[in-house]
Structure formats: structure tokens, C-alpha cells
């Protein structure tokens, strides 16, 4: 029944928004930019659900079995630092570049060739994350559905079909409207599950029984966010800061919703809502997992299945359905955003700008829709093999954006030097490949994440080379100078 409720909800929402918005999307540009006319609630919704995938839900609840409620620092840092930085600074900067994709923006600052190189790398990076998200969606369908459908291929195929209908009719505008409903369902549905768990526990010793269980195990720190072990600091807090600020800020999935805003003000105005939604989205899953792992029959299923197992034991079927909608709202919105962003970069940057600059708008729209289907197929094959989200895939693919955003930040704020940019990105990529496939065994596990050497190489080469080499002023200063010059010319005229 839960499976039927969840699939019916997403089918109704997708078909409804498709029929309603289809006539509003009149061009290929409308499809990928949302027309640039949307007010702040839709911009906020389009932006806020994009980074909230399995990383904020499934990964955190799984990690909470080892490091307790401190995993919530990931959500706190992401909501309290990344979201304000992006909506107040990075998002408006992207709009000022007057480009459609992040690689195109890099090309505008550092030259076309660097833009094309990033256009070739980023879709692969986004698809890597997408594979993990599809696997997580399929795992949610399988586990919360009580194993009613086989994981592969049935749940994976359903996950991919639900992803395609999330975007195929109206592109980014559809994502914005769907996300507005789904953000509400994600927060309301998952918090409802926590309240339900509270009342379910009331006759079984209450929340204190859970705290008592962990205390008796000598792990009372698991019900507190103040466990600052090296593991928490080096595998959670620092990675979150680096990945959200440096990776997500360079991601087309995050930057694309900025294109649909009516104005820069419409990007900024949702900052407090976005910060809270981003932070709170992780909370219910972690609490449910901590409760689950304190109940022997649930804990026996393992950390990854703790939330579905608790839901199947404690909730009525309709409540399991609502919880499934909440979880799928997180993972499907991210997967849909990733596939749309990948298709946009491939068609706009490679097919149009590099191969056929005179491409008609109609061809652009048809190609973008076709590419959504192609990307979906490309995701299915490894997802069928993968079975479940793999942390190392996240870390490897995420790290590809770190040197790119480091170079972008230096170029926007400080200095533009093409050679420094090429060398810094190449050094970052080399460090990422080396550390992923030949990770040193002499380091403690919490220091062996590939994002550390990638970030180190980015800082070393990015700062070092720009200190030595000459260059043009930072791009924001260049833009300001151009605006001032055009203002002077207008005044003289």
C-alpha cells in the first residue's frame, strides 16, 4: 500500500504539472532557464531540494549508527553556511556572468578552451552522483515497500521513470513547481514520522528508553550533537564545508535555478527558509535511525535498513507511504536536477556552442529532451550493477568540482590568469585520481578522503601560481569597470 501511495503521488504531481506547465514552455531557453521570470518562493524551492538527496538522508542515517546524532553537523553546516553563501553571493555572481551553464561561465572568465574541458568533465561528474541517487531511490522503494518489488530491475526502473517525468515536459519550471510541493512533503512527512514515533514510544518507555539504551551501552554521546571525535571532525565537518562550499557551488544543478529568478533579489529573499529546510531535512531520518538502532529487531537489519525497518514495525501503511513520499521527494528531486543539468551542459556547451552555434531553438529543445532520455539510460546500467549508494563514488565525483570552484573563486575575486587556472585544475584532478585509486594505507581512515589532497593541490597551485604570475583583475572588478564605463558613455550621450 505504501508503494502505491508514493508512486500515485509522484505520478499525479508529475502529470499535473506537465499538463499545466507544458504550454508555458515556448522555447528551448524556457525549458532550461524557466524563462527567468519566477518569484523567490519558486527559486528557493528549485534551489533548496537540489542538494538534498541521499547524502542528507540515507547516508546520514547510516552514519549515525557509528557517530550518533553528531552527523547532524553536516546538515547544520550545509544549511547555515553553504546556503547563505550561495544565495547571497555565489548565485547572484553566476547571473551577472550572463551565461547558461557554469562551464560557459568559466570559459567567459578564463577562455573558451577551459570551458569546454569542464563541459566534458562535469556531465560525467553529475552522472556519477546521479547513479548513487537512483540507487538510493530504488533502495527506498524496495525497503519501504517491504520488498514487494525486486530491487533490480523493477525498483531501479521505477526510479528512473519517475525521474524522467519530473522534468521531461517543462524542464526547470517543472522542477521548481514540483520542488515547491516536494519540499513541503519532505519536511512535513518526515517530521510527522518523528511525532508518530514519539507517540509509538510513549507506551514503551518513551524517548528516555532510547537514551537509556545508549547509556547502558556506554554510548550516551549518540543522543547528543556534541561528540567532536576526530572522526566527526575529519569525515563530517571539514568534508561538509569543503564539499558543499567548493563542490556544490560549482554544480550546474545549484546554479541552474538562479537562471529562473526574476531578479537578484528573488535569489536572496528565500535565504532563511532555504537554510532551515536544508538543515531540517536531515533531522528526522537521523532521529528515526537512532531509535531504530536501539530496538534489537530493527537493529538486526543493519544501519542502512534501520529507518525502513522501524517504519514497517511502528507505522500504519499510510504513514509508511507518507514517509516514502518524503524520502523520494529528496532523492527524486536531486536525480531530476542532475539529469536536467547534465543534459543542459551536453546540449548547450558541446552540441551547440562547440559544434553548431547556429542550432535552432527547436532543435535545441528536441535535443535536450532526447539527452534526458539518453542520460537516464546511462544511469540505469551502472545502477543495476551497483545495488546501493557507494560513499567512494560520491567522494570521487564530488572532488572533481573542487579545483574548478577554487579557480573560479580566485578568478572572480582576485586575479585572472589562464595558465594558473589550467595548472591548478589539472593538479587537483591528478590528486583526486591518485588518492582515489592509490589511497595511502599509512593514514588513519578519517584522513584518507580524496577531497583533502584535492583541496590542498587547489590551494597550493591556485594561490601559489597567482602570487607569482601576472594577470588581469578579478572578474567582478572587470564587470564593475565595464558597468561604470557604459554608465559614463550613457551619461555623455
Amino acid at each position, binding site marked *: 500500500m505504501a508503494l502505491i501511495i508514493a508512486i500515485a503521488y509522484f505520478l499525479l504531481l508529475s502529470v499535473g504539472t506537465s499538463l499545466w506547465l507544458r504550454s508555458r514552455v515556448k522555447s528551448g531557453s524556457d525549458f532550461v532557464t524557466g524563462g527567468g521570470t519566477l518569484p523567490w518562493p519558486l527559486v528557493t524551492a528549485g534551489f533548496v531540494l537540489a542538494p538534498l538527496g541521499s547524502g542528507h538522508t540515507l547516508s546520514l542515517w547510516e552514519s549515525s549508527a557509528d557517530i550518533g546524532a553528531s552527523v547532524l553537523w553536516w546538515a547544520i553546516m550545509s544549511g547555515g553556511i553553504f546556503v547563505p553563501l550561495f544565495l547571497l553571493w555565489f548565485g547572484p555572481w553566476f547571473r551577472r556572468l550572463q551565461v547558461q551553464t557554469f562551464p560557459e561561465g568559466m570559459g567567459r572568465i578564463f577562455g573558451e578552451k577551459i570551458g569546454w574541458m569542464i563541459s566534458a568533465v562535469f556531465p560525467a561528474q553529475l552522472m556519477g552522483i546521479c547513479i548513487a541517487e537512483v540507487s538510493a531511490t530504488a533502495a527506498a522503494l524496495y525497503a519501504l515497500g517491504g520488498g514487494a518489488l525486486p530491487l533490480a530491475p523493477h525498483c531501479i526502473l521505477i526510479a528512473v521513470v519517475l525521474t524522467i517525468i519530473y522534468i521531461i515536459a517543462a524542464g526547470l519550471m517543472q522542477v521548481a513547481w514540483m520542488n515547491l510541493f516536494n519540499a513541503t512533503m519532505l519536511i512535513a512527512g518526515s517530521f510527522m514520522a518523528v511525532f508518530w514515533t514519539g507517540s509509538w514510544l510513549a507506551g514503551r518507555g518513551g524517548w528516555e528508553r532510547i537514551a537509556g539504551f545508549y547509556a547502558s551501552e556506554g554510548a550516551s554521546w549518540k*543522543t547528543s550533537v556534541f561528540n567532536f571525535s576526530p572522526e566527526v571532525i575529519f569525515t563530517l565537518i571539514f568534508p561538509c564545508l569543503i564539499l558543499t562550499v567548493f563542490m556544490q557551488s560549482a554544480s550546474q544543478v545549484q546554479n541552474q535555478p538562479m537562471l529562473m529568478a526574476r531578479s537578484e533579489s528573488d535569489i536572496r529573499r528565500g535565504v532563511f527558509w532555504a*537554510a532551515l529546510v536544508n538543515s531540517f531535512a536531515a533531522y528526522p531520518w537521523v532521529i528515526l535511525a537512532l531509535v531504530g538502532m536501539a530496538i534489537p529487531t530493527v537493529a538486526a537489519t543493519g544501519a542502512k535498513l534501520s529507518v525502513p525497518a522501524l517504519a514497517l514495525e511502528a507505522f500504519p501503511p499510510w504513514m509508511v507511504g507518507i514517509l516514502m513520499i518524503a524520502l523520494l521527494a529528496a532523492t527524486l528531486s536531486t536525480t531530476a536536477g542532475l539529469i536536467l543539468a547534465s543534459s543542459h551542459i551536453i546540449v548547450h556547451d558541446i552540441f551547440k556552442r562547440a559544434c553548431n552555434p547556429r542550432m535552432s531553438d527547436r532543435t535545441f529543445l528536441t535535443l535536450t529532451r532526447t539527452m534526458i532520455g539518453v542520460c537516464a539510460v546511462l544511469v540505469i546500467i551502472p545502477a543495476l550493477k551497483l545495488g546501493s549508494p557507494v560513499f567512494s563514488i560520491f567522494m570521487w565525483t564530488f572532488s572533481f568540482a573542487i579545483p574548478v570552484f577554487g579557480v573560479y573563486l580566485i578568478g572572480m575575486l582576485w586575479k585572472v590568469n589562464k595558465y594558473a587556472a589550467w595548472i591548478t585544475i589539472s593538479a587537483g584532478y591528478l590528486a583526486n585520481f591518485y588518492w582515489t585509486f592509490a589511497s595511502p594505507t599509512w593514514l588513519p581512515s578519517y584522513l584518507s578522503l580524496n577531497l583533502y589532497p584535492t583541496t590542498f593541490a587547489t590551494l597550493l597551485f591556485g594561490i601559489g601560481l597567482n602570487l607569482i604570475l601576472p594577470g588581469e583583475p578579478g572578474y567582478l572588478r572587470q564587470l564593475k569597470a565595464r558597468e561604470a564605463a557604459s554608465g559614463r558613455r550613457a551619461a555623455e550621450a
Partner: protein
Amino acid sequence: MAWPWKILLFQFCVTLGMAVIFYILWRLAHRGRSW
């Protein structure tokens, strides 16, 4: 207050507090610009 609600309150205050700090920084860096 039970432990989940203490965590929720803490998370709310820290997240919103950091967002407010960034908002103030933006206001200071962009004096005169409309929100």
C-alpha cells in the same frame, strides 16, 4: 525536554544564527542596496 527536541532546538538556533550572521555581513558589504 526529551533529547530529540533538545537537538532540534539547538539545530534551529545554530542554523538560523549562522544565516543571520551572513545576512548582516551581506548588508554591511552592500550598503544602500535593496534586499
